[in-house]
């Protein structure tokens, strides 16, 4: 038990990433009702773009970060315009399958553009470990906590204080009524894809210095983020954050205290248990008031 602080720090780091990814899932779910299987590829793309900017073009981090986020945001929006909208379908099955196809397509393109090798990215600010309450953390862990926190607060502010955010929530709640009130539902769907692209990119950019990078790095992370979203109550943003952090800590404490062989079994076992007892997830409430 003497390493508990270390396990929790490790868990919160991975958990923050899961939370950001889970938020991306929520935003699209709330606008369209679908699960976006290309979410993981937004993560990969964020990492790949910043890799090219930093290592290839030697752009300073402070500029490369926003450019990468914007690039993936545009790809997210493009996905909606060229794949989702032309389908002219509200059938969830069709739209979900389109996102699966888009995911395979994107992964293929990444492989051609960036190759099949593993890549590495240096951390944002040095590799000197910091001691804190019996745990050692890297400066990159602090970056991850900080940027996740800012993103979550920013998202909350956007949804609760801005007209655009409120319009998105209205669309989530009842698209038909929102449309009658003069909200352009199509634009809201487009915006949701752009926004989840941005969230995926941020997650990818901050995690890559820790995990290393390849064209399919987002697949496993996307899956874990999806599990986190389900754990928290699919579609609920507070739930997504809570679910992500909880899943990360469960994995890490499970590995450290009980058995590293069964750590995924422990984490996903608890996920199943939560869903048996409360099928809507920890904070899931029903159809309205999800954002």
């Amino acid at each position, binding site marked *: 038990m*003497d*390493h508990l602080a*270390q*396990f929790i*720090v*490790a*868990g919160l*780091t*991975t958990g923050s*990433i899961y939370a950001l990814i889970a938020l991306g899932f929520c935003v699209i779910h709330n606008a369209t009702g679908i699960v976006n299987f290309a979410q993981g590829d937004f993560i990969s793309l964020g990492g790949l773009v910043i890799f090219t900017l930093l290592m290839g073009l030697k752009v300073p981090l402070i500029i490369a970060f926003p450019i990468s986020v914007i690039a993936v945001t545009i790809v997210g929006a493009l996905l909606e315009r060229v794949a989702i909208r032309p389908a002219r379908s509200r059938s969830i099955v069709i739209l979900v399958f389109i996102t699966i196809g888009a995911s395979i397509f994107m992964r293929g393109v990444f*492989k051609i553009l960036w*190759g*099949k*090798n*593993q*890549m*590495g990215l*240096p951390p944002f600010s040095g*590799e000197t*470990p910091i001691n804190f309450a019996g745990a*050692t*953390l*890297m400066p990159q862990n602090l970056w991850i906590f900080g940027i996740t926190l800012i993103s979550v607060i920013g998202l909350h502010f956007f949804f609760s204080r801005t007209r655009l955010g409120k319009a998105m929530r209205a669309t989530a709640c009842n698209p038909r009524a929102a449309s009658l009130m003069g909200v352009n539902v199509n634009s809201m769907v487009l915006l949701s894809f752009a926004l989840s692209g941005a969230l995926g990119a941020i997650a990818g950019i901050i*995690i890559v210095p*820790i*995990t*290393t990078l*390849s064209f*399919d790095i987002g697949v*496993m*992370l996307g899956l874990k983020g999806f599990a986190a979203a389900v754990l928290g109550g699919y579609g609920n943003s507070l739930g997504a954050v809570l679910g992500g952090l909880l899943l990360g800590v469960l994995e*890490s*404490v499970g*590995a*450290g205290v009980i058995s*590293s*062989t069964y*750590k*995924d079994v422990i984490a996903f076992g608890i996920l199943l248990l939560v869903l048996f007892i409360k099928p809507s997830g920890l904070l899931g409430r029903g159809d309205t008031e999800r954002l």
Partner: protein
Amino acid sequence: MKKIEVLVGILICILFLGNAHAVDPIKIGAIFSLSGPAAAIGTPTKLVTQMVVEKINKEGGINGRPIELVLGDTESDPTKAIMVVKKFINVDKVAAIIGPDRTDLGMAVKKLVEDAGVPTFMTVGGDPVIMGGGPLGTYKWVFKSPQRSSVAVEKLYDHLQKANLKKVALMTAADGFGKDGKGWLEKFAPKYGLTIVANESFNPKDTDMTAQLSKLSSANPDAIVCWTIGPAAAIVAKNVKQLGLKEPLFQCHGIPDPNYVELAGASAEGSVMPSTKLMAWEQLPDSDPQKKVIKDFVHLYNDVQKINKEFPINTHSGYAWDAIYVVADAMKKSGVEPEKLRDAIEQTKGYVGISGIYNLTPEDHNGLGTDSMIMVRVKDGKWELLQ
């Protein structure tokens, strides 16, 4: 009109001349992972295969007959590997097969080639493809060119024993490769007077191993031995530095690869591991018979084919070269009749290759011992040969 007649005449001449000189090529099936997760291993292996075949054909082929490569892609998927190998056997009727490149793919096609009786030289890491008995079946037709995991474990343990590091903590991946390694690490520890004081595992896709490493360090080991391939090894190295662990980190024979240094950065410094001689060939004494062969290989790889632009040389680069050369040498001696070819491969003695000097027997379908390996340490981002 005249022009056309002349052209037709020339064409006919070329066809006849061509026919008169055409020698029946020998077909060899080459199956590697060209797409999917293992593509970074399979693609350079394919390029090396093509490079060797081109070299052999330029030097006169197999007693005058050129080798014709039939390529196949496993897509890193055992089912696809089986389909490709079935095609090799039934449609292309290949004389021998080179590959596949990953243990699970090798195990998937093992029974097929054993039943069909096609000599198959794999480039896989795991030992079960050339082990027999029970569920493993037979291994009459399957060979492999990379060192056995057990050989790498013995090489590493020998080093630990000499360095007087007695208490070992194991950190193994929870996949086929890691479990195979863990088995050998546990089996050979007593032989080298080592005690395993802690045992942890991780998923090779995990992004953080500090939890396992903290637990390992509380057992106060003299050394940490990590057994995995791919980026997970780099994450382990980074986490060891992050936690400030003082124990030296040892990696397995799959890690000597410039990519490890690239991914782990400064954290890779000081990692020690068993490797093929390829990683530090320039530091070998000139008396080493492999040095010249490796020099030729590196020249072809880097300067002629320029494969290093996308895939810098790593410890695995020579496996396909050795596999094809052993098969081609056997063909020169005994022809392509399957039984005879198999027997000739089994009688290979003293073939000086990239990964070692091969001495095969009907029981040993790999033919490499601990003397084929060296210990290397990462120093200033380069590979330093340890004595």
